[in-house]
């Protein structure tokens, strides 16, 4: 419900705001094929015949990427279904979103453990099987698979169930559909009837205080899911083609259900079936390491629990793709990715300008001033005896000097494509949303929606508002959401953000600061539990991005909290790709959570410039 516009119908995308953030589930294959840009998505890794976990925040583009792999989209991309299946690597991708209320039903928690395990796997199997039947039925032209093959397929699938257990369901389905005439729909109905039985059992069992036995059919991996996927290969054009089961929003599955999925993966049957599991990292509950430990590891390093007490490990059992990592690992790649997507949207919207950099121009006067400051800083480098490389010196000081020059004159402008990409902090939606708002603001009241660019003042207005919302309105929204026991942590978080914002502002605007562009912090020492909770809340609501760094002393990695760059306009900070960090003691952090003024005063007094700053780690040491 975050979308500010209507679901585009087929061919209507061009009539809407080009930056509309729409749920991929509502988009038609034509729109997905037109809007999706492969570059820098790591889609090639996902296309490989390997089990894959795709970690990423909400709005990072995971669902769009998975839907793009569905047969109808790939047929558009490859100019024909048969052509796609002749391409390398061919696969049959089933999009299986885990919607709220599908699997995590309250009655499931009241089952006896063994029954719960059997039923949960059966439910998941039926869901995947229904998605497969639906995919074969609706994602292909009616003649793509001949009727005889479809009938054979349906009979094979039927034979995977215990004959006696499935008999009553078969009888029920036969009343409505004929296997002979409409095999795939017949299968869909069969899975539907079985699903109905499970839900009736769930309800009746709790009403009978757990005394009922489940008498319907059940299915496991080796006796149902794997042979089902193998049966697909018997269909025309499908020989040797693996099925990719793309489980989206797997964070919505219960812990037991996630364990079932992990166990499927442990079987290493990639020849026939690969699982592509997309989830928010924080919502996946089956990591071997506890939360405190795993937050210092990369997602790709993590082991996941399977049934019976074992583990699956990356890269041995699966590949890990962290969608959020792109900005951290390569800002230039992330900028290129956003540019590709934004340009595609301009093109689809049929706007006169197809280059997002032209569409979102920066403030020309400020750009000119920055160029001049860069020249001056380069000269200063000469005068100071050429410390280090000139490029590094200019990079380090020029932008800060611009902020210092602007202080007391005018507000810093954040207009311009590059600034906006940085402000998005690595999440695509964080770029598209303000674009949507500024486009909407600019075209409202104008006769034509075909504009050539958004003027910097309009961009700025929206960006400030968007930033202010994050620190004010969004905190209010969270306050309403949180249970009373968590409210003190939220107040502390709000104060902490103000403390850091004000400290970083002072440092950035101090002409004598050797390291002015601070934007993150680390904590040296044991953090008390109440402050840990504040930091967790900050990460959960994306005010901080949690990263790790190697300690200089060796011996592991430490947590590193980077502010969300969306906060830059409201605090007048520099968003452009620099993450100088301060090191805080738990005591300082506590003050920062309670009294912003005292914290800033204390830190500014305590941070003599000069020798204590490390040029290479960009860290201010205590």
């Amino acid at each position: 419900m975050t979308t500010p516009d209507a679901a585009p119908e087929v061919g209507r995308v061009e009539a809407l705001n080009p930056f509309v953030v729409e749920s991929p589930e509502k988009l038609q294959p034509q729109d997905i094929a037109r809007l999706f840009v492969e570059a820098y998505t790591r889609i090639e890794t996902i296309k490989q015949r390997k089990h894959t976990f795709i970690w990423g925040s909400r709005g990072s583009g995971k669902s769009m990427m998975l839907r793009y792999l569905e047969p109808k989209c790939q047929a558009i991309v490859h100019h024909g279904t048969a052509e796609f299946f002749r391409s390398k690597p061919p696969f049959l991708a089933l999009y299986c979103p885990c919607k709220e209320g599908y699997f995590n039903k309250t009655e499931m928690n009241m089952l006896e453990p063994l029954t719960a395990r059997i039923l949960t796997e059966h439910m998941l199997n039926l869901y995947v099987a229904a998605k497969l039947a639906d995919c074969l039925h609706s994602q292909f032209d009616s003649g793509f698979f001949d009727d005889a093959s479809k009938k054979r397929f349906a009979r094979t699938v039927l034979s995977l169930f215990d004959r006696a257990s499935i008999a009553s369901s078969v009888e029920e389905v036969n009343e409505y559909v004929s296997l002979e005439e409409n095999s795939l729909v017949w299968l869909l109905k069969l899975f539907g009837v079985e699903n109905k039985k499970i839900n009736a059992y769930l309800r009746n069992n709790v009403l009978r205080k757990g005394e009922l036995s489940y008498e319907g059919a059940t299915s496991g991996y080796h006796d149902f899911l794997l042979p089902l996927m193998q049966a697909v290969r018997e269909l025309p054009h499908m020989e040797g083609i693996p099925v990719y089961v793309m489980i989206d929003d797997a964070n919505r599955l219960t812990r037991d259900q996630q364990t079932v999925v992990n166990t499927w993966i442990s079987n290493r049957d990639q020849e026939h079936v690969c699982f592509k599991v997309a989830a928010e990292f924080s919502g996946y509950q089956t990591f071997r390491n506890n939360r405190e430990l795993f937050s210092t590891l990369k997602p790709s390093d993590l082991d996941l629990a399977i049934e019976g007490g074992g583990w699956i490990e990356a890269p041995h059992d699966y590949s890990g793709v962290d969608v959020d990592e792109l900005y951290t690992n390569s800002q230039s790649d992330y900028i290129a990715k956003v540019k590709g997507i934004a340009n595609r949207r301009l093109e689809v919207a049929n706007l006169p300008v197809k280059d997002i950099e032209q569409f979102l121009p920066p403030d020309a006067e400020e750009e000119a001033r920055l160029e001049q400051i860069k020249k001056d800083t380069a000269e200063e480098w000469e005068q100071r005896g050429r410390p280090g490389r000139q490029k590094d010196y200019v990079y380090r000081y020029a932008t800060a000097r611009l902020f210092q020059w602007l202080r007391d004159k005018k507000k810093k402008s954040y207009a311009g494509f590059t600034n906006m990409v940085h402000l998005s902090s690595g999440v695509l939606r964080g770029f598209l949303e303000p674009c949507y708002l500024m486009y909407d603001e600019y075209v409202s009241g104008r006769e034509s929606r075909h504009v050539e660019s958004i003027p910097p003042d309009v961009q700025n207005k929206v960006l400030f508002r968007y930033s202010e919302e994050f620190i004010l309105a969004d905190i209010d929204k969270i306050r309403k959401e949180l249970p009373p026991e968590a409210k003190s942590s939220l107040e502390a978080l709000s104060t902490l953000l103000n403390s850091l914002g004000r400290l970083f502002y002072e440092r950035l605007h101090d002409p004598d600061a050797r390291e002015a562009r601070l934007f993150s912090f680390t904590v040296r020492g044991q953090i008390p539990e109440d402050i840990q909770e504040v930091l967790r809340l900050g990460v959960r609501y994306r005010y901080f991005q949690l990263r790790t760094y190697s300690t200089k002393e060796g011996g592991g990695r430490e947590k590193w909290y980077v502010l969300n760059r969306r906060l830059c306009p409201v605090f007048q900070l520099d968003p452009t790709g620099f993450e100088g960090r301060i090191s805080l003691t738990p005591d300082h952090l506590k003050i920062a959570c309670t009294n912003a003024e005292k914290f800033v005063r204390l830190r500014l007094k305590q941070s003599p410039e000069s020798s204590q700053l490390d040029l290479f780690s960009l860290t201010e040491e205590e």
Partner: protein
Amino acid sequence: MYKVSVREGEQAVGIDSIISDRPDDLYLACASYEPRSTAVTDLLSSSYQAERAIVYMNEEILGSTCGGRVDAAAQKIAAALERRGGKVIEARGSWLDPQKQFEALQGAIIEQNLRGAEFVRSVSLDATTFNREALLVTLVLLRAHFKRAVIRILYVSPDDHGDWLSRGFRSVRSVIGFPGIQDPTLPTALIVLSGFEYDRVVRVANEYEPAKVFLGIGNPATSPNFLERNKEEQKLFLAQQDIESFEFPADSIQSCAVRLQELIEAHAPHYNLVLAPMSTKLSTVGAYLAAEQNPQVQITYCVPGEYNVDNYSTGTKDLYTEQISYGE
């Protein structure tokens, strides 16, 4: 549906048993922090009798600052029923733990069903201050255990509500007994019976990410002021796309159920339906009846962070009485 102002009710003879000259087999009420928690019990006639009674409470509320008020209400209800010859037991459930909530109610209903289900013909259920999830679960249990009973719903509306009713969000969950049946090939549609809790509606919608929302406005409401406030609270939500509004009678169980049945019939072929009753208790019972007839519909409950225990409602306005029968 029978409606009478509480003041008139006090002046009249009072509430009598469902079948004249025969005590009700069971009386259920929920003791709560609201002043109207004991209003129905206060309106029982002097000749009213119930064989057995269950007083339900949420342990978190009991343990909170308003626990004393809840305890006093429970004692008052229990004393009133004991005076009328009933054997009263307390059921302590939880609004945070759905399993505990269910088992507390289930245990109490089974324990009170000593004579056997087939003899239970008349149950009076004071729905006034049950939280909606507990009310739905109670109805499911009554349906399961007393198939032949007439259930009389008693409800007292307040004079007014506080500035806010609940705040915060903990989770959404399907209500036990209403898992629904989801067709993987269909998108999800959310049917909301809305009240004054805008934030809770938004949260449910965010969690389910439905393709379509049918937002119900209670009209008639139990008070004309409530209708205006309901419309005002939901204005922002209605301004969003993919949301269609409809009206439902918030003051009548059967009429609400009929309205929901129409909606379900129209949309069940195209969507997996999730029903979120967030309006009056009468409409919540209406939602129960509609979902009971349509097992494919899931009922969802949004667990708030906290309730406005000090000022949830004030006064007592009207007494509503309506019977539902399972007809077996």
